[in-house]
């Protein structure tokens, strides 16, 4: 779920912009300068993954994957998400530029938190990694929903109802997201564990000399 333009009060909008600009700057500093193109290409992959729809009963939900992004990209995740949102608002007709800051915070903060959580607790066994990955995936979406609700509530008590509905609407996404993330992480632990080392952008670089 993205926030569209004109929903948030102007003070919140600007505040979010400032906060996410700072986080983007931090995230960019944590990524090596030369490797930024790589991050751009990976962003495209995350973008495509977020277009996947999964049926849930009579409706279908589409994945948001902040948790997975964080688990795979680590500190660079915020930059990647910001980029993805910019791309979406520029080219895919969704979301104007004014809500960009709020949306980046909504997706990026959970990504950072879950990335840290995953790296901290992933352990060594495949099963545990998949489990922790699933938790991170679910938590990512849950956090995103909570931040969305908080941002909405910042608009005053008139928005309480909308915030509640938005939270409820995310419950199926949280479940689906958690399970899919667990399977994805499980797949990666078996097939390409190198991807789960957060600083993977850095490691491969070293190999290239």
């Amino acid at each position, binding site marked *: 779920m993205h926030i569209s333009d004109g929903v948030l009060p102007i003070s919140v909008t600007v505040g979010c912009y400032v906060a996410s600009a700072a986080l983007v700057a931090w995230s960019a500093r944590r990524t090596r300068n030369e490797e930024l193109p790589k991050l751009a290409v990976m962003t495209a992959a995350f973008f495509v993954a977020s277009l996947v729809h999964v049926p849930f009963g009579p409706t279908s939900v589409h994945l948001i994957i902040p948790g997975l992004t964080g688990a795979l990209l680590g500190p660079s995740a915020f930059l990647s998400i910001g980029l993805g949102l910019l791309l979406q608002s520029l080219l895919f007709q969704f979301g104007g530029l004014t809500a960009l800051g709020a949306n980046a915070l909504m997706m990026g903060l959970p990504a950072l938190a879950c990335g840290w959580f995953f790296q901290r607790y992933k352990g060594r066994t495949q099963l545990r990694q998949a489990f922790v990955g699933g938790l991170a995936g679910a938590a990512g979406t849950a956090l995103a929903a909570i931040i969305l609700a908080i941002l909405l509530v910042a608009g005053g008590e008139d928005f309480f109802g909308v915030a509640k509905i938005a939270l409820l609407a995310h419950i199926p996404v949280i479940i689906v997201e958690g*399970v899919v993330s667990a399977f994805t992480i499980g797949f990666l632990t078996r097939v390409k564990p190198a991807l789960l080392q957060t600083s993977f952008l850095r490691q*491969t670089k070293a190999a290239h000399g």
Partner: protein
Amino acid sequence: MADVINIQMPLWQLLLLLLIPLAAITIMVVWLRRVAYKHSAPEEKRDWSVPPLADGSGTSLLHCWDVRCKIVTILVCSFAIASLSHLEPALVAIGVSLIILVVARVSFAKVLLRLLAITGFVCMFLVVMPFSVPAHNGDTVLVFNGMDWLGFNLRGLRLAATIAAKAIAIAVLMEPLLSTAPLPVTLHGLSRLGAPEMVGQMVLLSYRYLHVFRHEAWRMSSGMQVRGFRKRTDLATLRAVGNFIGMLFVRSFERTERVFDAMRARGYRGRFPEPAELRLRTRDLLLAAVWLTAGAALIAYDRIAW
């Protein structure tokens, strides 16, 4: 201050109030979507040996406006619109955006797609807010069949309508900003305004590989379909989707490495070459000034008139 005004209404009028607009919106959306897709299909026959927008369509005022002025003006205007808090100025803002749209002569179908993308979110507001907004003094609440808990607050409707109007006005503004210059030029303008050059290049790269990965994902999903995969609500589907995403990441990661190699092999060392240089003319600034005045007037109207 008056108390909450309760107006009693029979239940069927609720249906009238809700279902008919909803049905109307749905039908509109479906019809508009069809129209939009039909008109946004790529025309293959065009001559690709000349730059896009150089073929006569790009003669409007906005097309020859300096891109930096354009970005600043439209961004400032968007924020101005976002800061409106009353319905009437917001409606005026839609009017202004539409005028700009006509001046810029951009593709109407693309604007429609943009509008369609926000319908879901906006509709949620239109439906939820009238019922969820707490009743204040001076509010008019429609109560159906004496069910007090289901009061339809007109103030809520007005609030939601304001939000919707602002969203539409801004969404309409985006199209003249983006389609009156090729994307690289717009992004370059952004970088000349202080954003790092790398941001623009990264957007372009992502955009380029988005297409590649989408195509790859499409082929993979048809590979799954050929083997009988149908999405259902069960664990097997989620497992398959999890594998699918994992595979997508692995392939993209490998491609990322190759792309990076290809860039290095052609001399990339952390910097992209500079694209076209820009020239600022008085005319550009004049246009920006006029426009920004309009934005300021809108805010003034919003703040003073109410």
